[in-house]
């Protein structure tokens, strides 16, 4: 069995600190703006705590994930794709996970997994892009330039420290777009490196670390360039030295990379990871596809929680998983489901009080064939911001009052 080697070395630790200590957009400083000087006075977040957000893109079919097998209406609406009771992992006498979710069932039974029922928002959009943007900005039916994670980082860390937010993806998510932070975005850590010949190394550094641009586009490019210069070494080293005995499943959509950074003591407070490419958009013949998606997702998340515990950080990490909407209650004629509204969200981790939260939406009292949401998704965000990360004024980030749930 491979052995995890804790990364040592004074030089490395110094590098990490130096990376964190520097501020990317220092010149454009948030500290001077009125909004942020107020925010700066707010109490600091709980040190050491980490939030991991997992986005399941495409609109997960919540009813075939947390299956209400105790409700006949479920089988009436889904005569062909409804999952029979003998093919389920029962959580209680009403709800069950679908059969492929062994890992998440274990987490639930250990009391480390909270299901929040009926999560959605008012006047729901059935468009992937619009609804995902609403979730990412926490601003349904409104335009908003920055993401909720980006705004959270700006509020909690007005100085804009490097690597405060990490986004595992090929492209920066709207959720992490921020005024005062340049999130560290990467996909393949091994490729997060500038290759150059030995002779080129000093000019390459010089041209990457630049001053002010002549316009916004240049300014942005220079900011990204400086961020890349500082971060590449750190990420690459963290990944190269990361060893784990844990099996992360067949689709490793990013949590293993999060674990590697946590193992390397990255200063990151918020990680944003997506199961990408609209994977959960199951319009046709969804049974096998959806089962497979949850095999991968459940295997991967359970592995991550196990790995975090192995690293001794179980008490510091909370993961939340969501999808931009649920799907319609009634199955369609192609043995799939069309875009719907509310769905379950998950909050997972050792600090979590496991169980079920939120009112269960009715399967019969529908609005145009869709579930009526019972819990605004921003309550989960408020839970993460306030009760987990310890920031006292979630309303300033979420632009409205949302009661946190007593999950953590």
């Amino acid at each position, binding site marked *: 069995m491979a052995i995890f080697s804790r990364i040592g070395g004074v030089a490395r630790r110094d590098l990490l600190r130096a990376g964190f200590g520097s501020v990317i957009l220092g010149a454009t400083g948030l500290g001077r703006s009125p909004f942020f000087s107020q925010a700066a006075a707010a109490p600091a977040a709980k040190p050491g705590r980490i939030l991991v957000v997992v986005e399941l893109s495409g609109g997960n079919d919540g009813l075939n994930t947390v299956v209400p097998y105790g409700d006949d209406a479920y089988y009436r609406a889904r005569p062909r794709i409804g999952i029979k009771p003998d093919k389920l992992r029962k959580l209680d006498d009403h709800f069950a996970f679908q059969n492929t*979710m062994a890992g998440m069932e274990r987490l639930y039974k250990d009391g480390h997994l909270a299901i929040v029922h009926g999560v959605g928002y008012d006047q729901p959009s059935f468009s992937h892009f619009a609804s995902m943007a609403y979730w990412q900005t926490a601003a349904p039916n409104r335009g908003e330039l920055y993401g909720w994670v980006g705004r959270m980082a700006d509020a909690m860390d007005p100085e804009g420290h490097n690597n405060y937010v990490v986004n595992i993806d090929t492209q920066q998510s709207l959720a992490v777009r921020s005024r005062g932070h340049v999130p560290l975005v990467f*996909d393949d850590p091994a490729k997060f490196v500038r290759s150059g010949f030995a002779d080129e190394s000093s000019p*390459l550094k*010089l041209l990457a670390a630049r*001053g002010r641009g002549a316009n916004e586009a240049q300014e942005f490019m220079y900011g*990204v360039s400086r961020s890349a210069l500082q971060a590449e070494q750190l990420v690459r080293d963290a990944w190269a030295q990361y060893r784990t005995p844990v099996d992360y499943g067949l689709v490793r959509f990013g949590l293993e990379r999060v674990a590697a950074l946590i193992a390397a003591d990255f200063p990151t407070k918020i990680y944003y990871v997506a199961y990408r*490419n609209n994977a959960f958009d199951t319009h046709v013949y969804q049974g096998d596809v959806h089962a497979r998606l949850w095999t991968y997702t459940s295997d991967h998340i359970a592995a991550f929680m196990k790995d975090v515990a192995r690293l001794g950080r179980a008490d510091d990490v909370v993961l939340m998983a969501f999808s931009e909407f649920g799907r319609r209650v009634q199955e369609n004629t192609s043995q799939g489901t069309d875009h719907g509204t509310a769905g379950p969200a998950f909050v997972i981790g050792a600090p979590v009080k496991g169980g079920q939260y939120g009112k269960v939406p009715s399967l019969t009292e529908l609005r145009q064939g869709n579930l009526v949401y019972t819990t605004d998704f921003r309550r989960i965000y408020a839970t993460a911001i306030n009760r987990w990360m310890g920031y006292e004024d979630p309303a300033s980030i979420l632009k409205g009052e949302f009661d946190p749930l007593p999950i953590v």
Partner: protein
Amino acid sequence: MDSHSDLKNVSLVHGFRNVLRSPSGPAAWADDLTPITVSDWSYDFAAQLIERAGFGGTPEEIARLAAMTPERAVAHLVDYGSVPNDHLEPFDASGVWDPGLRDFPPSRVAATRRAERTGEALGVRVKPEGERRLQPVVDRFFYWLRATLLETRRLANWWADRMVATAHPLEEKMALFWHGHFATGEEKVRDYRKMEQQLALLHARATGNFRDLLIEVARGPAMLVYLDAAENVKGAPNENFAREVMELFTMGVGNYSEQDIREAARAFTGWIDDDLASKVDPAKHDDAPKTFLGRTGNFDGVDILRIILEQKATAEFISAKLYRYFVREDISPAMQARLGAVLRDNDYEIAPLLHTMFLSRDFYSEPSFGTRIKGPVELVVSTYRKLGAKRLAGIPDLYVVSRELGQVLLNPPTVAGWAQGRAWITPGLLLARGNFARDVLFPDILNFTDPNFNPGAEIKRVNDRILAGMDIREATVERGPGGGGGMEGGDMTMANVIASAEDFNTRYGSLVGFQEAVRKIKPIPRAAAQFDLSLAVVSSGAKTAADAVDHLSMRLLRVPVDAEVRAALIAFLEKQLGTGDLDRAASYSERPLRLTAHLIMSTPEFQLC
């Protein structure tokens, strides 16, 4: 030829202008659609035009445009029909399709169910008895998945090569725009032929009439499959297609209601792909009256599209999107209204709108200069074109590069296409762009392996075990990288439980299918890019290392680097040459110049145009 002396003049003029004034027009020109005049026209303006309306060019190409009037230069790019382009080759298909693959099932499960029910699927019969009776069907299923995937990569390679080689760069730039607009991906369509057909349409109608393009794309088999139109039937409408048509292809959100979507979906019922044709199935079409955008009638799908095209919002949405693609991110509401009017007044002909944009003062104003972040495909194509290469290289591999940079042709991430602008750049992607430049300038041929022959670690492991004599069941069990420690159920993740059924084995099927596909697919030529920087630099009249750096900067950048970086580049090149005298170093200057070009192409400035 006289192109060298042209170029010398251009260099001098260029240097002279740099001293006298900034390369762009004044900031006050922003939002001004007044056409520029001959006296405004310059090398820098011509460079801006070819950069945006094409993929940039060599100094020689820019000089040729600069020698025309602005109207002639714009017409040369927009009305490209008369420009000879016969050297382009058509796509050379491998011939991997056969009629048994018609109506390919949506999933492996559907394929094996069909086989269980009828004794045959995908043109392959079930074994009468014995072990794994359905295996041939599963093999066949995976064969086509792999074959159409690889053939689509070849098609993308052909297209990118065409972008590099074409004399009609705007045709390609518009085809790329439409591909992102009517985003359709092979991963879902699973038939390269339908993708090829759609691509031909995007080329043919690149600068033509948007109405014709919209209707033909909407009725094309690729789009019908991609948006599940075939599942949209009378009595049980599937709204995917109707929604995306309005949200993404025409009006944008906020101009219609959910009710309009439901009604439109009814009008599209019965539209179905019929291999490479499409038809309306009368039995599945809902021909009762519908009320759509305030009008009631017995509308069919084309009626719906025509009503959508009558909306002011549609013309404004399309022209604003074109503006963001060609000019800059921020468009004022007034500009959006004026451009929308141009498109509508020209009955949705795209070319007149492009003429207006490319001739406008706005297009050459300061906020439009050097502020556009190149998309990955543009970066790749313009890199080759600016270096003077006539063909796309086979090393580095286009698919690998474009996947790393975030834009795989013929496989957009979602139906929304690719997010433009800042979304193209992250710290990691900036590094990847520099690495691409190095791979072009210094292709690592010794370490190159064809990515199309790489089936992934899982299938490779199965292959190795089969070759070592293991039986199929034993060879196809997957263990975690750490050798255990999985989920509930011993050492297997749930994925293993699903992989091996009684009548067939999916992992073995993946292996067999992959092998058959790579046996039939024609290879992608693996040559390095051909260009000669020494010749280019010497031909420009450069005498010193400083001249060479200035020439390379002018050739590659639209946003100049600052004095400190310029000085560092000159010092670097002098050190590499062992002298500041280019003549003295002429016999060995190629590698030092390529190193210098790599540095220039690693700058943040190189990402902008």
